[in-house]
């Protein structure tokens, strides 16, 4: 009986103590609600993206051939492939890496997103898709990693050589456990051409995961300072997809039937894909930035009389050259005049860009065997022409002397190439918008721009020196050619809630 009284007393004391010490925060609601909002966009711009400008193969064949069709399309280049209309992405998870390099599985949810290639779809209209995720501890984060299982585009065709010509048939693949007439180009994004030259290429995977530095942390940014004290923090991840899709060709290596595959993938502007390449990797360009909606301001202004240009804002003091690709890193004494885009891509200008040895053909088809021998002869010819020293024609038809005279030079030149396309040398601007031409956006006057959701700070605002070219971003060549890249408009100091116009 005494025990029982004691225990009843204990229960009352316990209840009283609970009532006194109760929570001020609903913990279970905290567990459920997200203060970290992840938004995925498929545009170069952070808001107000440029409308789709995909060249039509029928009405604009010249532009289609130069901008949409990659130079890897050469075996079967007379056919007209339909334009892609749907982009699908299959994410198995997203992780965040903090500055002490521990990772957080904050979005361990498989997500599949299919987007129409139009100006209304959230992936392409500047709004972005919110992804499913949980919160992370209050900390400083350096990287976000997207585990991309698949990326697919439709309108891929397999062509079989017949007596009467190329016979097309659509290619099917699986997206979200169902079959669609699509092609998973993500599998070819695993390696870039540069990766295949390296001994450790088997351990390289560029898309699973795709590491994206947050807020330019590799070039002096601060990363993501996440604190649960703010009601919301937005992590914006942008993959460049809009106006950045190209058509590629690959030779099928299966069977004895002579066939090629035409498929669409992301543009090879950064890591050029050449004829006969089996990979298209290194071309998933991504940028991640964070902002706290309570603190943001905006930068607005006009670039008149210019219109139809990109306007970018970078933190003051940052080197603008980081946001453009340098195509002239290789010292070549024969180059007297500055290079331009017609001189060639970064890869084709590399004096050590020689053909890879074609894979040995062991099948029984006489045609394929003869083709292999021809390729092998061509490989030896190209190799002998460039190495140890020789002259070759660059993309512009100018004769140049090769200086790939040793394996040391070979590795130096390719390491230089890798450094130029690497994230410390080239990164996408955190803030970019498109200032439209007259009538391009209803309600937006020509040449005006508004950069939304800008965190407080001082920014330098630049305008592009040329109109955007489909499938390309921005180059700089060398200092004597200021026509490429960007020109400074002015400096803007943003405070929370302000709307600032850059001051020259």
């Amino acid at each position, binding site marked *: 009986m005494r025990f029982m009284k004691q225990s*009843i007393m204990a229960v009352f004391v*316990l*209840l009283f103590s*609970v009532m006194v010490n109760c*929570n001020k925060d609903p913990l*279970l609601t905290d567990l459920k609600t997200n203060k970290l909002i992840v938004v995925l966009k498929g545009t170069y711009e952070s808001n107000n993206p440029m409308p789709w400008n995909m060249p039509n193969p029928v009405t604009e064949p010249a532009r289609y051939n130069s901008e949409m069709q990659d130079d890897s399309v050469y075996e079967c280049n007379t056919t007209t492939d339909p334009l892609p209309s749907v982009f699908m992405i299959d994410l198995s998870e997203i992780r965040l890496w903090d500055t002490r390099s521990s990772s957080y599985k904050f979005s361990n949810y498989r997500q599949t997103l299919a987007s129409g290639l139009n100006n209304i779809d959230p992936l392409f209209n500047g709004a972005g898709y919110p992804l499913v995720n*949980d919160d992370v501890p209050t900390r400083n984060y350096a990287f976000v990693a997207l585990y991309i299982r698949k990326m697919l585009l439709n309108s891929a065709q397999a062509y079989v050589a017949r007596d009467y010509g190329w016979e097309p048939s659509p290619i099917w693949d699986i997206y979200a456990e169902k079959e669609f007439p699509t092609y998973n180009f993500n599998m070819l994004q695993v390696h870039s051409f540069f990766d295949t030259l390296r001994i450790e290429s088997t351990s390289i995977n560029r898309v699973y995961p795709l590491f994206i530095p947050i807020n330019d942390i590799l070039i002096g940014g601060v990363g993501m300072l996440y604190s*649960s004290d703010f009601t919301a923090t937005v992590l914006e991840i942008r993959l460049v997809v809009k106006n950045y899709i190209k058509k590629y060709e690959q030779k099928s290596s299966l069977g004895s039937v002579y066939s090629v595959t035409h498929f669409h993938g992301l543009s090879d502007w950064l890591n050029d894909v050449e004829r006969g390449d089996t990979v298209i990797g290194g071309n998933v360009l991504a940028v991640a930035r964070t902002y706290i909606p309570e603190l943001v301001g905006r930068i607005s202004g006009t670039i008149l009389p210019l219109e139809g240009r990109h306007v970018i804002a970078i933190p003051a003091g940052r080197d603008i050259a980081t946001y453009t690709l340098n195509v002239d890193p290789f010292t070549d004494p024969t180059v007297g005049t500055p290079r331009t885009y017609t001189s060639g891509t970064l890869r084709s200008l590399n004096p050590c860009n020689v053909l890879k040895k074609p894979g040995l053909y062991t099948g029984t088809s006489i045609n394929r065997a003869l083709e292999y021998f021809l390729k092998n002869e061509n490989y030896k010819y190209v190799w002998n022409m460039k190495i140890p020293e020789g002259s070759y024609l660059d993309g512009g038809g100018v004769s140049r002397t090769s200086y790939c005279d040793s394996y040391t030079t070979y590795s130096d030149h390719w390491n230089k190439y890798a450094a130029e396309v690497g994230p410390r040398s080239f990164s996408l601007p955190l803030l970019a918008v498109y200032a439209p031409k007259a009538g391009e956006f209803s309600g937006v006057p020509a040449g005006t721009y508004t950069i939304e959701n800008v965190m407080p700070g001082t920014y330098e605002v630049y305008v592009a020196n040329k109109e955007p070219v489909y499938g390309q971003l921005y180059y700089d060549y060398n200092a004597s050619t200021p026509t490429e890249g960007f020109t400074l408009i002015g400096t803007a100091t943003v405070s929370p809630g302000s709307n600032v116009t850059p001051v020259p």
Partner: protein
Amino acid sequence: MKNITLYCTVTVIAIVLTFSDAFAYQERKDYFSKPQFGGWFGPVTPVGDLGKRVETNLGGGGFFRFTFPWPYLKIGIDSSYQKFKSKGVNELQFVPVYGNLLFQIPVEFPVRFQFKAGAGGGWLSVKPDNKSGWDPIFMAGFEVSFPAGRIVNIGLRIDYIYIYEGYMKSSKNGGHIINTGIQLYFNI
């Protein structure tokens, strides 16, 4: 072969002698009315909204019980430790401390069926927000226990615990947890 038979026989006789009370349930009722203490372990399962955030794990706890003058009613104090993890970053640690009343179905049967209901407090700690604190909780449950001698009882239990956060303005949901377990407790 002979040896095995011998060992088996001795073991069975030993068990029968030791647990002779199991065959005399009417005597045992008095033992069951003594103060009791014990422990349990088993799967703890978050359900509903909470179940989408964290996953089932193993948990366990202990309890004391005292019988009222009416032998079919007991009062108990119960506590346990439950840690729910997830595949991602979410984690919930939960330590409920509550009092409960147990009602035994008044049927003369060696196996005892008890219903219970109670209230108390629960300490919660959530990740990734790294916050912790106390919340009121309510519970209801059901137990089946088997006698294993004068002192030992073996039981199965299923408890439902509701974590109440509705008294806070910004709260959107409470928590629902189901504990099931095997328990061992002693009459002292």
